[in-house]
């Protein structure tokens, strides 16, 4: 009896640990297929890296996870994407609420042309928070969590556009953390940054993993190896291989994965 309960608990824990599950996902832009029949489970509090050559569909995949693809004209999505077991493509899904739960950091830092404070306060404000004290707390916490507080605490009122590229990207992460998402999607978040800023963001990702589930697209093999727990390799719109990062990088099952990782690839 006791063993049965224990087993059930483990099963329940296993179930909880899957944060997002993608089943038979295909995406077309007009008549051009971008993804075909992708199956992938994103684990909670894991960093999942998506790697692959340009045009392999990894960014498309990332953008289906919070339906940012909806903004593109003529996009067609089939299959299921489950967030905590609920299909986010089910008709009647509240896309606005979905994006609050599954947030996104973009390739190029894109702070709003506002003050640092207002950038971070933007999310809480659009979700209806008016209380100044509470806003101040949230802004400070988000900036601390994004490892930016010490650098900007004396100039919260100055424009975010005056920050360096790396600071801007951490600001964008802070802006996202302020809405307390559950999943953080990152689309090559360091590709426009210098190496030091890149390392800062990578450290940050490690810290954030305790609270958030992270999916990151990267062109940088070392980065994928450094920051991620699981790695998915995409090629020509197909998921070639998906598994623990150390396995993918040391003992890949598929020849194409090995070729790509070792740089023997187009």
């Amino acid at each position, binding site marked *: 009896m006791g063993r049965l309960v224990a087993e059930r608990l483990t099963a329940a824990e296993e179930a909880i640990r899957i944060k997002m599950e993608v089943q038979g996902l295909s995406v077309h832009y007009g008549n051009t297929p971008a993804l075909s029949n992708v199956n992938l489970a994103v684990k909670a509090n894991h960093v999942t890296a998506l790697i692959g050559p340009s045009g392999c569909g990894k960014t498309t995949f990332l953008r289906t996870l919070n339906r940012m693809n909806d903004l593109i004209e003529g996009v067609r999505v089939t299959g299921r994407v489950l967030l905590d077991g609920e299909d986010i493509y089910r008709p009647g899904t509240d896309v*606005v609420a979905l994006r609050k739960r599954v947030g996104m950091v*973009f390739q190029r830092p*894109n702070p*709003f*042309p506002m003050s640092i404070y*207002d950038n971070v306060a*933007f999310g809480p404000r*659009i979700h209806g928070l008016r209380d100044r004290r509470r806003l101040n707390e949230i802004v400070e916490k988000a900036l601390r969590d994004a490892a930016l507080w010490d650098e900007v605490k004396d100039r919260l009122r100055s424009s975010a556009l005056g920050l360096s590229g790396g600071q801007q990207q951490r600001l*964008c992460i802070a802006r996202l953390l302020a809405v307390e998402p559950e999943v953080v999607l990152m689309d090559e978040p360091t590709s426009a940054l210098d190496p030091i800023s890149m390392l800062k963001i990578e450290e940050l990702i490690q810290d954030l993993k305790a609270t958030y589930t992270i999916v990151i697209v990267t062109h940088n093999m070392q980065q994928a190896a450094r920051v991620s727990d699981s790695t998915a390799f995409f090629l020509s719109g197909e998921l070639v291989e998906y598994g623990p990062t150390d396995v993918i990088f040391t003992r890949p099952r598929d020849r194409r994965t090995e070729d790509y990782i070792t740089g023997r690839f187009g």
Partner: protein
Amino acid sequence: MNKYLADRLATACFWAAAAVITGILLFFLTHIFWRGAPVLSLAFVLGTPREMTAGGGVGPQLFNTFYILVLSLLFSLPIGVGAGIYLAEYARPGPLTNLIRLSTECLASVPSIVLGLFGAVVFVWYLGLGFCILAGAAALALLNLPVLVRVTEEALRAIPVSYREASLALGATKWQTIRRVVLPSALLGMVTGVSLVAGRALGESAILIYTAGLSVSRYFPDFDPFVAGETLAVHLWYVNAQSLVPDATRIADGSAALLVLVVLVFNLCIGIPSRILQRRLLGGGGK
């Protein structure tokens, strides 16, 4: 010809083109102010016009100029800006969008004299408003409308998609994104457009001759929109063409200088506050 020579030649050509433009503007301004500035006095700027004797002012015309402009913007801004937002943010490619765009372009290419006659037929006669400020403002709004649509659409399109994506990815609705990110960022571009529209409207005469009329109220200032309201630009034409006053040339010179000043002051008047407004919209609250 080697590439360095070609490079220098190209630079010289564009520099010359810019110099010609500046030269033309300077010539006009000097000419207008040389003759007009001595006329500008408080008595002229605020005085009432006379029909037969010398020494009349243009106070009512100056007032009407602004009154008609403000009224016309009141009519055209909501529709023009609304349609511009629709085209930039909501419209999907298709027959409806094409129709809206075609209508805007057609309206923009209508000669102002045609709009004036249209205003005379529809507002002055058919709706029975008579020659009045309201009819003039309504006809002028038709002139402003297509420009406002285009200016708004272009100002919004100039805002990077990344701002919109960032906002939507934070769980903002489309309207929140437009209202809090896109419009404030586009404000200066839109204000530049409104200045252009206003400048054109301030100098417009053909439309107003047939709608707002050639006479002014005997009271000054008269806020009644149903009385005739000659504007400065129309007055400029009128004194030169039809007036009986002996000092018509003097009045025309003064009116011209005043008109240029008015356009300048108006642009400053909406340019500076809009910068402050933008700062407040983008950086508002939460201190």
